[in-house]
């Protein structure tokens, strides 16, 4: 007799098959590609073992791109989460025009990354840019600055744009977590403690810390795999100043026509991302997601 308990795998097939098709197959194919010489300009696709990985890791850009990605992740993820939490706390308050402010804060979320990048390119523009305009007007600058052509400033500019795109998601999730706090607890806290910082530290933070950790992991992964903002704002430059590992996947494949090397970089990114997730979750208290 056909029952759910007797043939569970068959009943799960309709769900498993599409997942396998859209995730396992591409990943498997990418792994195969990384182990073969798939250069469009050379005939054949011979097996080369780990040659692509060795070539990528010993290339002149790899260490720079790895350092850039690490810095980008370490700086962008906490800032995006901190800003998200701060804005969510602010938006919990009742004030005139709160609905409008909420909509404005969430606006970057609905914009595709490339559009956001174009927008920020104009903000940093030396002739027409808002930032140069303000700094010149205030007398902080004597002449305009080419933010995206200066290596240090270009990195900072891309980082700002990336954080801007990520903050709304942190706001939404933090607001959801805040909405879940028992109102009686909050009322009691307001009666017992006048300091808003202490209320946040001892009442609110413990209630939303699980969400903050989730956001940290999510933002670390988003920063480490960031591509669109870099592509549209600086093309990884000047030189390698804003070249991130994820951007290098594209460059190896589509600029250099070396899909084997591109797939190898992709697998290195996946490996580091997995390590990142394990490291962050291991660092958490064991009862973080447990029953209260």
């Amino acid at each position, binding site marked *: 007799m056909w029952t759910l308990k007797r043939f569970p795998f068959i009943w799960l097939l309709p769900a498993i098959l599409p997942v396998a098709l859209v995730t396992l197959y591409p990943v498997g194919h990418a792994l195969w590609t990384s182990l073969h010489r798939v250069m*469009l*300009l*050379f*005939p054949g696709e011979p097996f080369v073992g780990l040659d692509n990985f060795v070539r990528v890791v010993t290339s002149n850009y790899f260490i720079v791109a790895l350092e850039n990605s690490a810095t980008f992740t370490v700086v962008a993820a906490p800032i995006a989460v901190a800003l998200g939490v701060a804005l969510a706390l602010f938006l919990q308050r009742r004030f005139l025009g709160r609905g409008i402010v909420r909509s404005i804060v969430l606006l970057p979320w609905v914009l595709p990354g490339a559009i956001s990048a174009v927008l920020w*390119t104009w903000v940093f*523009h*030396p*002739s*027409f840019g808002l930032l140069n305009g303000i700094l010149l007007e205030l007398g902080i600058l004597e*002449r*305009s600055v*080419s933010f*995206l*052509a*200066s*290596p240090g400033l270009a990195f900072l500019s891309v980082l700002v744009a990336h954080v801007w795109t990520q903050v709304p998601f942190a706001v939404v999730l933090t607001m959801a977590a805040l909405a879940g706090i028992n109102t009686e607890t909050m009322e009691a806290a307001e009666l017992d403690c006048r300091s808003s910082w202490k209320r946040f530290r001892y009442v609110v933070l413990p209630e939303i810390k699980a969400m903050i950790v989730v956001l940290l992991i999510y933002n670390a992964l988003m920063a480490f795999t960031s591509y669109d903002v870099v*592509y549209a704002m600086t*093309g*990884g*430059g*000047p*030189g*390698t*100043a804003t*070249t991130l590992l994820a951007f290098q996947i*594209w*460059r190896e494949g*589509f*600029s*250099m*026509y*070396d899909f084997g090397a591109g797939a190898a970089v992709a697998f290195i990114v996946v490996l580091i991302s997995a390590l990142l997730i394990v490291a962050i979750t291991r660092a958490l208290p064991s009862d973080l997601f447990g029953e209260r």
Partner: protein
Amino acid sequence: MSMRIFAAAAVVAGAAMTVPAAQAEDITLEFVVWNYSLDTIQDNIAKFEEQNPGIKVNLTDYTWPDYQDSLVLRFRGGTQTDVIYGGQDWLPAWAAAGWVAPLSSVAPAGSVDALAGDIAGFALSDVTYGGEVYGLPYYADTISFIYNAKVLDENGIDFPATWDEVMAASEALRAAGMDRPIVYEYNQELPNFFDAFVAQAYGRGGELFDDEGRAIFDDPDNAAYQHLQWLQDAFSKGLIQPEPHESNIITTMNTGQHAFTVVYNYVLAAMNNPGEQPLAGDFALGRMPGDANSTLGFAKFYAVTSTAAEDPARAEAAWKFVDFMAGAPYGVAKRWAVEKGLGFGQLPLLTDQDVITAWNDWIDMETLAAQVETAKAGMWTEWTGVWSAYFRPLLAQAIVGEATVDEVMTAGAERWNTLRDQFASR
């Protein structure tokens, strides 16, 4: 069966007999372009379809920065693609990979040779690979030195004939209050970034490669080496304003706060467009500074893919379409020239009165003719695109002073020669 049902069945049967016959003749060509002036392209397609019943053209467009990637993905993924916009820098690699077909494989015998006779030398060189013509020019242009003539007049500065004079003029303008006199397209992911550099080196009379195709630009006496040093110096003196794209250059130059730039000629047409730009008419074409006054000429072209060429019916339709868009009597190329200021590779248009009249509004035809006459094609090999992708970030690093000219030129030359050797032993 009632009469009504019988009649309906007869109509359906009749339709079934006629419709498939008509459909069998219909071919829909997949035409892929970068997204410049799509309205004009659609209008040209409509005219072609009107003249060629049974052939439909489906247009797909990508942005210029995404174009190469998108085409590579289409080719690799087996997406039906029949006619494309091609570029001179991509042709050798795409032809070697078997993605595009020689036009002789789709055109009636002799027709390509007849058209090739009308194409300017550098443009013909750009559409040719392995002795075969792979495309007909969509447009052909030179990279040119453009200046704000009014600003120079007002400041009593003569047109600079050499790069040293450009530096001196820029410093004089800077002293007179102009923040950054030179606007430079600075985007290391765009092929134009390298092309413009080559054009400037050609202006100095330099060659980047010897007769056997070896890189020679790592020699400090080489014009390209010297020019990179010049760019680094100009940037460090704060004379250069980088802009990520030519569209930004049009607006930036029209602020009147800059005097010089190096871009394609059609950008000058846009700068001098009185309907759209406040300083239209102030900008002029100058010969590329340097001892040789030469520059880089190039062609973008219509090419037919190998998959289209393998299907006789599709190949025939694809050729008809390419011939309509770029073949004699060059109506479409003329339209681009007159309406948009796009350069052309078809020499008969040089003497076309409509073209001359339209172009006289925004460019000095005498200077243009002299510039075109001295224009040279680039060195396009199977590995040029790959090498250029490697070299452009180095070039960008050197310009902003993050690497020395010697480091960049040495690394660039080594990489070129390595790729050359790899391909020789392929």
